[in-house]
């Protein structure tokens, strides 16, 4: 359900304002600097952007106007007719249609000129085209001046229209001019409508609100209607006709029986009968106003008859709606409804009656729809079982109530207080209600601080249990420790042995310490670089001493270690020594040099041969002869060399650590090579 709020319509700018806004926006929001030396495509793009931006801004601004204004075919017929009456439907539609066409034309112009700009071959030409495009758009908008002005006026008027909800509960007040419609409105609601003693004071629809049965009601005051054909009615009257025709409301037809308004009762009755078709399907109430000036009883019979006739017609009208209402309205007073808005006499009766009628008719109409059946099928109203449903009071209570309640023996605190000097003097004994193991403990004194501890910190209901548990645990632990001690006690060692044990342990821990230190320095490898050995402790002498201490002969190891740096001369001697040794010992602890010497050399071999290993091809190694093996060795060495030079992990490692080294790719390239800059 749409909400009819025309107050939020955006303002419609006048044509000249719109042009200023759009053009200055284009100026502000698109780049402004262009140079003739730019590439032509850039210049074209620069101007195309301007053209497109202007078109887009026009499109947006006008589109907003078109979107916000209500479409007459979509809104409630009441509003669409009211707008027809007030602003002329054709004019309204034409104005909106013209704006719509203008938007389309602007879009087309922009498209054409953007296409032309694609062929622009100079800055001058592009600029001229842009100018022509914007100029044509502006000319188009200037031609819409009248429509825009009209729409702005419509907007202003619409924003001041009273916000009438066409679907809510409504009282609609109508009648001849100056019969007291507005005064009724003023008494019933807080609308504060103007009331003047001349015809057509009210020139448009007015809305007020009131409460009845905790519901919100809308009262609409309409301008007076004259009795003449529809074609000759003016705009003011047409507004009330529109309201009468389209609003589902209770209609209060007000008759001035004093005829002070300048129209006779006969005339008013004639009007009533002529606009009767508008009352169809609506509850209708004929109200006689101004009883203060002319009493109902004093009316001539002729007038009374006329009023009766109107009343009957009204009842007939209502009869079509509901059966119940006829009974109700005829039985209410059997006559006409009268009021005096001046003295506020019977106004609330009129109001109540009208509201009742409308409520009933609305309920009836709702019941007639198909929806109600769906709801009623699902409804179940639970009713209490019939019979007396007296309260249930126990018999004992009843008996007690009759006999009077026995006085209780127990002394309450209040009684004690009364006995011992009343409130303020008596202080209640709290301790007597303590729940302790023994009653005599109740009044024992408890210190706050005991042995420098706050007693309250140690108060714990299960402290005894927990303490006992702790003690048990400790005992168990002590027991266990004792058992262990028993197993390996040092008690049975002699003093000398103890000394040795101490030494052994110290040594052990030292070794561990040293090892750890070494491990740290060498980073896990067996060899330690000389630079790490700052204290010069990793010497062969020390090794010999230390191993000797442990009872190991380290001379061979030292010999091997020394072998590296020994001169040829020395080596020769060593070889000779080895030959002597060959016979005696075949121990595995031979120095490397000694092993090498033996494999390679016979005594007849010339000195020039280098110390190479294993030249003979072993069976099963895949080589035919040693030469082949050697060749393979050389080849693999060659491969390795390259890989090692480039620090590769293996053949598969093809990583390029720095793809673009800075020094090769920065700076100017002079006469030199690309790899030297």
């Amino acid at each position, binding site marked *: 359900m749409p909400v009819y709020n025309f107050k939020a319509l955006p303002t419609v700018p006048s044509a000249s304002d719109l042009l*200023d806004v759009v053009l*200055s926006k284009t*100026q*502000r929001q698109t780049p402004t600097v262009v140079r003739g030396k730019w590439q032509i495509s850039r210049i074209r793009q620069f101007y195309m952007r301007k053209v497109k931006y202007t078109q887009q801004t026009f499109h947006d601004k006008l589109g907003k106007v078109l979107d916000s204004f209500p479409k007459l075919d979509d809104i409630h017929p009441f509003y669409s007719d009211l707008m027809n009456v007030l602003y002329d439907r054709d004019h309204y539609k034409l104005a909106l249609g013209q704006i719509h066409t203008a938007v389309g034309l602007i879009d087309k112009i922009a498209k*054409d*000129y953007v*296409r*032309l700009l*694609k*062929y622009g*071959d100079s800055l*001058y*030409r592009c600029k*001229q*085209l842009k100018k*022509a*495009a914007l100029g*044509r758009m502006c000319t188009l908008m200037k031609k819409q001046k009248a429509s825009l002005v009209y729409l702005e006026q419509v907007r202003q*008027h619409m924003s*001041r*229209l*009273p916000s009438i909800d066409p679907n809510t509960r409504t009282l609609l007040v109508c009648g001849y001019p100056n019969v007291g419609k507005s005064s009724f409105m003023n008494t019933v609601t807080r*609308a504060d*409508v*103007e009331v003047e003693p001349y015809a057509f004071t009210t*020139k*448009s*629809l*007015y*809305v007020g609100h009131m409460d009845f049965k905790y519901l919100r009601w809308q009262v609409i005051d309409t301008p007076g209607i004259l009795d003449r054909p529809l074609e000759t009615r003016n705009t003011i009257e047409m507004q009330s006709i529109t309201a009468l025709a389209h609003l589902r409301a209770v209609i209060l037809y007000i008759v001035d029986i004093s005829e002070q308004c300048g129209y006779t009762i006969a005339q008013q009755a004639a009007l009533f009968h002529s606009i009767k078709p508008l009352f169809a399907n609506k509850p209708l109430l004929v109200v006689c106003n101004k009883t203060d000036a002319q009493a109902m009883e004093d009316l001539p019979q002729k007038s009374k008859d006329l009023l009766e006739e109107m009343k009957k017609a009204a009842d007939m009208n209502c009869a079509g709606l509901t059966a119940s209402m006829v009974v109700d309205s005829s039985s209410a007073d059997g006559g006409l409804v009268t009021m005096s808005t001046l003295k506020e006499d019977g106004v609330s009766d009129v109001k109540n009656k009208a509201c009742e009628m409308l409520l009933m008719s609305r309920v009836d109409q709702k019941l007639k729809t198909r929806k109600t059946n769906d709801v009623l099928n699902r409804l179940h109203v639970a009713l209490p079982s019939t019979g007396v449903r007296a309260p249930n009071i126990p018999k004992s209570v009843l008996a007690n109530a009759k006999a009077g309640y026995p006085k209780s023996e127990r002394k309450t605190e209040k009684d004690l207080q009364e006995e011992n000097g009343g409130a303020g003097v008596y202080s209640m004994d709290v301790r007597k209600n303590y729940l302790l193991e023994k009653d005599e403990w109740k009044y024992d004194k408890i210190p706050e601080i005991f042995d420098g501890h706050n007693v309250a910190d140690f108060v714990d209901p299960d402290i005894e249990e927990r303490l006992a548990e702790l003690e048990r645990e400790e005992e168990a632990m002590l027991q266990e420790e004792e058992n262990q001690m028993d197993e390996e006690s040092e008690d049975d060692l002699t003093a000398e042995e103890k000394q040795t044990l101490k030494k052994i342990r110290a040594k052990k821990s030292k070794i561990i310490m040293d090892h750890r230190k070494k491990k740290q320095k060498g980073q896990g490898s067996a060899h330690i670089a000389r630079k790490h050995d700052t204290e010069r402790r990793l010497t062969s002498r020390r090794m010999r001493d230390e191993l000797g201490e442990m009872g190991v002969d380290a001379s061979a190891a030292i010999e091997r270690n020394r072998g590296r740096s020994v001169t040829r001369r020395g080596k020769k001697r060593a070889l000779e020594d080895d030959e002597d040794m060959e016979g005696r010992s075949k121990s595995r602890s031979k120095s490397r040099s000694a092993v090498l010497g033996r494999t390679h050399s016979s005594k007849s071999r010339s000195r020039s041969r280098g110390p190479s290993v294993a030249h003979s091809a072993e069976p099963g190694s895949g080589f035919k002869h040693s030469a082949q093996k050697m060749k393979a060795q050389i080849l693999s060495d060659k491969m390795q060399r390259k890989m090692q030079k480039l620090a590769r992990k293996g053949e598969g490692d093809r990583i390029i650590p720095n793809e673009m080294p800075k020094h090769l790719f920065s700076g100017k390239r002079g006469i030199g090579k690309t790899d030297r800059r």
Partner: protein
Amino acid sequence: MPQNEHIELFQKRYGRRLDHEERQRKKEARSVHKKAEYAQKALGIKGKLYAKKRYAEKVQMKKTLAMHAESDGKRRSNEEPKKGAIPAYLLDREQASRSKVLSNTVKQKRKEKAGKWEVPLPKVRPIAEEEVFKVLRSGKRKRKQWKRMITKATFVGQSFTRKPPKYERFIRPTGLRFTKAHVTHPELKTTFCLEIIGVKKNPNGQTMTQMGVITKGTVIEVNVSELGLVTPGGKVVWGKYAQVTNNPENDGCINAVLLV
């Protein structure tokens, strides 16, 4: 008065404040200074627009003042000629004052009469071929330069079909083809958007005419059947010549004057 016009309602019920008129007067008196202050302060496009508006207002005001003054002058010139001899150099003054009397409308009419017999555009700026024909490079290496694109507005007949690219020397791009022209009838002072039938003559040469290039000063033939012109013999005229008065490639449209 509609329901929600609270200010008007209040004024109707309780009137305005007592010094309202005085305040209005003062406000109006001050408005001149306010405007001047704004005019000096406003910057940029706003300032430009405002200055332009003020200038237009001033011109308008001066014109109206001048008009009033002129009517005053008219009365003065009707004075009796002075008696006695007047030197020759003073005779001229009287003449001048009388010429001033001529109203603007008469001047306008004279101007129009003079203009009626003029050819719309007797002279046009010659346009070089280089300007009209843009060289297009073709071939795989873009070495060949025998193709030309026409950079001016053109008219291409409806039955025209392009040649195969190998033989198409001159390209008339579709974006620059025009079929309609805004033609002004010089006597009726009205403009119609009419269809172009053909290019009669381009002042820049035969090739241009053949190519259908439309530049300023070109004579084109337009379809005037909508105008309902009739020959003295009673036949309906449907083709008429018109001269182009603008640069179509710069303005994106063709404006022309009907040759009557």
